[in-house]
């Protein structure tokens, strides 16, 4: 882990003003922000741990908890909301058995929400990993999830 974190920091020229981008890359690597990685980051950039944690908790994109294999992101933007995005979220919560922000016990899915993904015309939108699902309805939720269940 040490080497990977060091390589990410080095790619940004050990520049602490790039902290958000560095945290993004660490999260991409590990799927969340592991404690050990943040320790390393704090020492390497010579910034207090409290500052690293204040950044990691301020921005909603970051997770300090281990996330599931697939990240299921439900858009809650206005365009999606007026077309019933909250009902899609509730349907996903029921079917996955977890609330937003939580990970299923088998670590397959983490259910997250996002405020807009920039494809509002196709709302309500759900994104699982890198795949977009537009014009969602409640009855499309199960077939969508089953694609990722194997």
């Amino acid at each position, binding site marked *: 882990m040490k080497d990977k974190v060091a390589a990410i920091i080095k790619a940004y020229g050990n*520049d*602490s*003003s*790039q*902290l*958000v*981008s560095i*945290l*993004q890359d660490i999260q991409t690597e590990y799927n969340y922000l592991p404690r050990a990685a943040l320790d390393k980051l704090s020492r390497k950039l010579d910034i207090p741990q409290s500052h690293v944690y*204040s*950044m990691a908790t*301020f*921005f*909603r*994109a*970051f997770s300090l908890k281990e996330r599931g294999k697939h990240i299921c992101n439900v858009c*809650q*933007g*206005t*365009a*999606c*909301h*007026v*077309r*019933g995005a909250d*009902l899609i979220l*509730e*349907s996903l919560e*029921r*079917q996955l058995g977890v609330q937003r922000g939580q990970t299923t016990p088998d670590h397959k899915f983490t259910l997250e929400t*996002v*405020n*807009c*993904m*920039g*494809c*509002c*015309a*196709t*709302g309500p*939108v759900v994104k699982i990993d890198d795949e*977009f*699902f*537009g*014009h969602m*309805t*409640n*009855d499309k939720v199960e077939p969508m999830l089953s694609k990722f269940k194997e």
Partner: protein
Amino acid sequence: MCMAGKLKTAKALAALQKRLAEEMDTGKCRISLCNGTACRPYGSNPVAEAFKAEIEKRNLADKVEFKITGCHGFCERGPIAIVDPGNVFYQRIQVSDVPEILDNSIQSKAPIERLLFKQDTGAKSVARQNDIPFYTDQRRIVLGNNTRIDPTSIEDYIAIGGYTALSRALFELQPDAIIQMVKDSGLRGRGGGGFSTGTKWETCRKAHGDIKYVIVNADEGDPGAYANEGLLTGNPHSVLEGLVIGAFAIGSHQGYVYVRNEYPLALKNITLAIEQAENLGLIGKNILGSGFDFSVRVNRGGGAFVCGESTALMASLEGKTGEPRAKYIHTVERGLWDRPSCLNNVETWANIPLIINNGAGWFSKIGASGNSGTKIFSLTGKVNNTGLVEVPMGIKLRDIIFDIGGGIRGGKKFKAVQTGGPSGGCLPEKLLDSPVDFDSLLKAGSMMGSGGMIVMDEDNCMVDTARYFLTFLEEESCGKCVPCREGVKRMRQILTDITEGKGQLSDLVLLTELSAHLKDSALCALGSSAPNPVLTTIQYFKDEYEAHIKDKKCPAGICKALIKFTIIDEKCPGCGRCVKTCPTQAITFMGKQKPVVLDQSKCIKCRTCYDICKMGAVSIE
């Protein structure tokens, strides 16, 4: 196309431009497929792959030029392609349509009827893009080039005249003259505030300090707005060219592009564009031999809405949490690292090359008095034709929603249009004839914002909409100032109570009072404009609030605590579809041709049965 090394003079750029323009004019038929973010959920990626494979398989490269472009705007009908010559507009393309499109295009046959646009099933089809009502009323000076270029190719951008404005700015104009041009054009900031861009540049140029910064605000956090995304993804060089011109005018040598991390494609394309411009010497040391140095860095956001606010964005650029500060001293005087900083929205920067190329007079004639130019809106929600639209300012809301947007889906009744994101307001039918410009929208209680335009119909509840925005703002409030941290929360709690049937008439007075305090005392625009969704809905849709409070009813049938789903026995054919889909087994099958029975105690009001029933046998009370 092979590229020369760095361009060292304006002449070298002009020569390259001439050569690329000639190479682009191949005489081959050209198919431009939209592969913007909104077309991807429709499967534009597999369609693009199918085109490439088919062209290679049939060895058609010398007959067809296939281009993958950014957003064409008409997202509702994706995936979209335009075939030239002929300006033929194909929509909802599937992988299986690809061979036929290729055959037709090469042999210049009549367009394929089933892939042409029709507003309704019975309507006449329209073959040419320029004849489709969605496009005819637009004025696409900023977005229009999206259909002509591959956003990942700087050659394409140069071939259509890109970076000419930069060359002109560097060699024919002095910084003061550029600023004067931008002032004369009347360009106002497209991020929402609508401040004069030229004046902002002038103040920044005059501010004390050797080191100054220019910043592209691409942290388009307004939910329901993706105009910046479409522009940055589809034509990143236009934004970059504007930025370099601005830097030269202001006297800055370092620029930043702050992009939302939720826009991966925009991030990728702008990062690539910077690299390409550096390789050609259009960014870097001694640009085109002018002696002007400029470099740019891309920073990613972390999903915080408040970072769209200039001081919060700058804090985030410094590697701090994105909390705004009071603006006693403006950021053009002391911004990033306490140095003069000029921050403009993506769309503002993209307008700059147009002004330099065509002149301030040309620009100021577009749009309305005091509101020159065009504005890109993301037209979404309950309209027929959703997508990105670029219109001259001063156009009526009605023209956007009913002419360009094609009216309301499913023959429903228009209720409201929401502009300006969470800081904006909901405008009713009686204001549909008011012009869309910075000042008129403000007067109506809303604002331009970054260009979200969300249309709502009779099935949307306005109290729920206000509660939605306040929930959003409560989550996104950074918590630094008390009025926003506590005030927004209280307002959201009161609104939630009303949607749950626990409201009182005095709540409306309380909401109005809280709004006034918040407007006066919040630290930044997130808090001070947070009351807008509440105030406009109370002002224009008071009857809905009263129905929730007095009658304990939600007229639109949205607020769960106030509605009940029932089966209309006469309409129910007993097909059992709802029985199978009901997640809580609340509906019981009673035998064929007998109406199903809904158990209210088990119903969670998830609406699945209502949506799935084709007979309209489920009603909401």
